[in-house]
């Protein structure tokens, strides 16, 4: 299933770019910066977890 998805080819430190998520959210009534900052922190954590396994 994953193979059929369009490749994101995320940058280093990124798994799912905020821009992709933002487009899916659409209308943004609140403060985008607050949400973006925390999204990117967790995204970076996930990235480090993934690459941990390849850097052994």
């Amino acid at each position, binding site marked *: 299933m994953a193979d059929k998805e369009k490749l994101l080819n995320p940058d280093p430190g990124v*798994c799912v770019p905020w821009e992709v998520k933002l487009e899916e959210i659409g209308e943004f009534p609140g403060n985008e910066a607050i949400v973006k900052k925390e999204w990117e922190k967790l995204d970076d954590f996930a*990235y480090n977890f993934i690459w941990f*396994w390849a850097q052994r």
Partner: protein
Amino acid sequence: MSEKQMLYQKRLERYITAMDCGKPDMVPVAFGVGEWIAKYTGTTLQEIYYDLDKSNSIVSEMLPGLDFDIFKGGPSLWWPPMFDAMGSKLYKFPGIGVEENSTFQFNEQEYMKPEDYDEFIASPTEWLVNHYLPNISTELENPGSYRSTVALIKGAAAFAMQGGIMAQAYGKWTMDHGIVGQGTGFTKAPFDTLGDALRGMKGVLLDLRRRPEKVLAACEAITPHNVNCGLAGAGADTRFPCFAPLHRGAYPFLNPNQWNNFYWPSLKATIEGLWARGKRMLFYAEGDWTPYLDKIAELPDKSIIFQIDTTDAKKAKEILGGRFCLQGGVPTTLLTYGTPAKIKEHIKRTIDELACDGGFILDAGGVVMGDAKQENVIAMIEAAREYGVY
């Protein structure tokens, strides 16, 4: 400022001065508690690996009374419960796969196949998630299944838990004993990322003959990720180096032509990428790197700390000294087979030869093995203080 805080500041200054090739008040000493500690504490290696609290308490008991500057870490490199949660095939750990007092074993396989290169190069992070993690983890063999989803939740939770526990332990050791951690961030040479965990030794060596352009393209794709990995951790504190254990670049794994064309360009780019962001690399040159010292000297000044394992120390000093901090100088075999008297004699000579004009950190050359003797390790620290005053 408390006594321990002042001690921390003094040791930090000593460390930073040496990294910048200067001459501190005395030669900084690096020290790590290795697997060798197990036989002196009545614990099994399995207990040390599995029980982080026990492992950290052993370190806490050892630190008082030891006068060194830079702490390289506790006795276990990995926390196996995280690997168990994922059903990881990468290692055999003490008590699960190997006997409870055996060191861990890396289970090298071609987890990435030759036909995977293009997809990996197109999007490395996505390929790792979609293919590599299921390939290395029995629990992830059926992505999207109950077992797979639970394993990912547990694995990520374990990653966070271990990070939190170790951060707390380092905070306590700093406060209670004034020790300075060696570094933040972990990275590798791109060729090692490819050749260690993904293609394996046999796979990557065959690739050098059969698909060299794919090897180069993969190393190029890995490079920005390895820059990022070196910056990760502890807020990417650029006062400290990132740790980079270097494997296939040691002589004579590759011939000089292969080293120049396949190993070095992407490692150099990684180091330059890190240095452009103010981050130095602890160039952990395991084995012998003597034939490559001239190439290493092409790096920007101070961008690495060069670890001397079995590299010719005098040549390393001659070629790299003054422009790069050197670290090491004590053969790990001496810590196993030597005596305190021989250790002291060796350290006096090492300090005379390598530390005379600064830019040197005294340390074991490589990872201290489980059969090292505690009296030798302690003799190393004591001799460094006795002979290391400038």
